[in-house]
């Protein structure tokens, strides 16, 4: 009985170790999201030549006067430094946006779609383009 428990524990630990290693490296779910955005960007603009972390960083820090007045920028809630924890206007903590700090960021397509849908409207007053989303994620994956 003891041996079985030991084996089960070891297997669990090994599984965790492996999943942890994977998280630190490229994540297939995240890669799929990026690939989808890439294809979408290419479809809307044949001249599209890949995502840019610089454009993503600019978008992250930009101040908008068009969206809702309480949320002029991504930094309103996520702070200017994406490796820091953010905070919602109602006081709840938000995990750091940088993938280096929050390894499971941008791995759930539904979640990614939900928050781009909400926050592009809140901050920019319009939906984001696939190119903008891809730039944004590229910047944060690199942080």
């Amino acid at each position, binding site marked *: 009985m003891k041996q079985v428990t030991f084996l089960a524990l070891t297997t669990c630990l090994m599984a965790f170790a492996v999943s942890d290693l994977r998280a630190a490296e490229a994540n297939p779910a995240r890669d799929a999201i990026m690939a989808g955005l890439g294809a979408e960007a290419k479809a809307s603009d044949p001249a599209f030549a890949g995502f840019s972390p610089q454009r993503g960083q600019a978008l992250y820090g930009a101040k908008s006067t068009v969206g809702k*007045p309480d949320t002029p920028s991504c930094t*309103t809630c996520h702070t200017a430094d994406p490796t820091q924890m*953010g905070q919602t206007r109602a006081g*709840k903590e938000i995990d750091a946006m940088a993938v280096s700090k929050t390894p499971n960021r941008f791995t759930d397509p539904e979640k990614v779609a939900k928050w781009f849908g909400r*926050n592009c409207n809140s901050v920019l007053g319009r939906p984001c383009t696939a190119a903008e989303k891809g730039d944004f994620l590229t910047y944060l994956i690199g942080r």
Partner: protein
Amino acid sequence: MTINDPINDGHVPVWDMPTRIYHWGQAGLVTLALVTGFLIPTDWLNIHVIIGTLIAMLLVFRVVWGFFGSEYARFGSFIFHPRRVVEHLNSVLERAPAPHLGHNPAGAVMVTLLMVVVGLMLASGYILLGGTYKEGPFATVFSYASGESAGSVHTLLAYGLIGLVLIHVLGVWVESRLSGENLIRAMVSGVKRQTAAAPAWPPRSARPLTTGFVLTGIGYLIAVGLVWSLRQPPAVPRLAPDPIYKAECGGCHWVYHPSLLPAATWRRLMTGLDDHFGEDASLAPERAAAITAWLTSHGAETWDTLPAHRLGTLDPAGPPRITTAPFWKRQHSHIPPAIFKSIKGGPGACDACHTDADSGRFSFRRIDRQHRLLLQPPSPKATP
């Protein structure tokens, strides 16, 4: 020494020590209860409840002492025929009241009235505490409506009590002037001048042992009652938040208890998620529908708590913001804005101070003052 033995200079002991302690204790505590009841904001009301509980203990003792105390403490020594009361008042008007060692007939009526009114205030106070605030031994016994009715009675009696106390003090002053004996000092020293004939019956002495037994018995009954009240199910039934509601809404803000808004307001709020207090909080339609169904089936109408009854006064045409409800504003009007600024999430983060917010009860006894009073510097993350 029996009670009417003159003490050398013609003074006799009248008010025994327990009666005097009761009198001045009651005078001080009732004054404090009136001041706190009328003046302090609701969130400090626990002080008032503690004072009331001390008064209840004093009054229970005094009632027992009225049967087993020494002569002039006994109720039997100050039961007078109504005619004697009228006679006495007439003699006061003629500036020649007959001397009495214990209570005179008018004074007897007054102390009886004071004890009855204080007793009724205690009863109505505990019903108010239980029914309206869902606290205390009657939290599971009385409804919000009963609590509110008891609250009206409690307030009316308080005005009545102020009137009685003023008349009582006036009466003591008039009697002192007319009799030439300082009755206030007599209630401190316990002795009065031997001016009146001793009662026709032999003066009875106190029976402290019997008093002790009776008080122990009453204490036991109260303890049984308290144990019973502690074993009751919670006065406000616990309702676990719907998992979808908790996950979606709780991601950004405190998981508001569904009792805080009426169903119609929840519905209105859920149909305007694209502009949710200044942000787009749109949800997948099926998830929004599930949350709406849960909130509207557990809205304010289905709860018997104070917030459920009072926050409903929210302007149906205005934004469904709880902090704009007149009741909310009134209850929080004395809290400095700096305290709200120090709270992550501001005044909408109810659970920052209300430790029972998740139950929907919002009792004044469950406020985390440590948090409220220790100003915390604003979070450096909240850069504009």
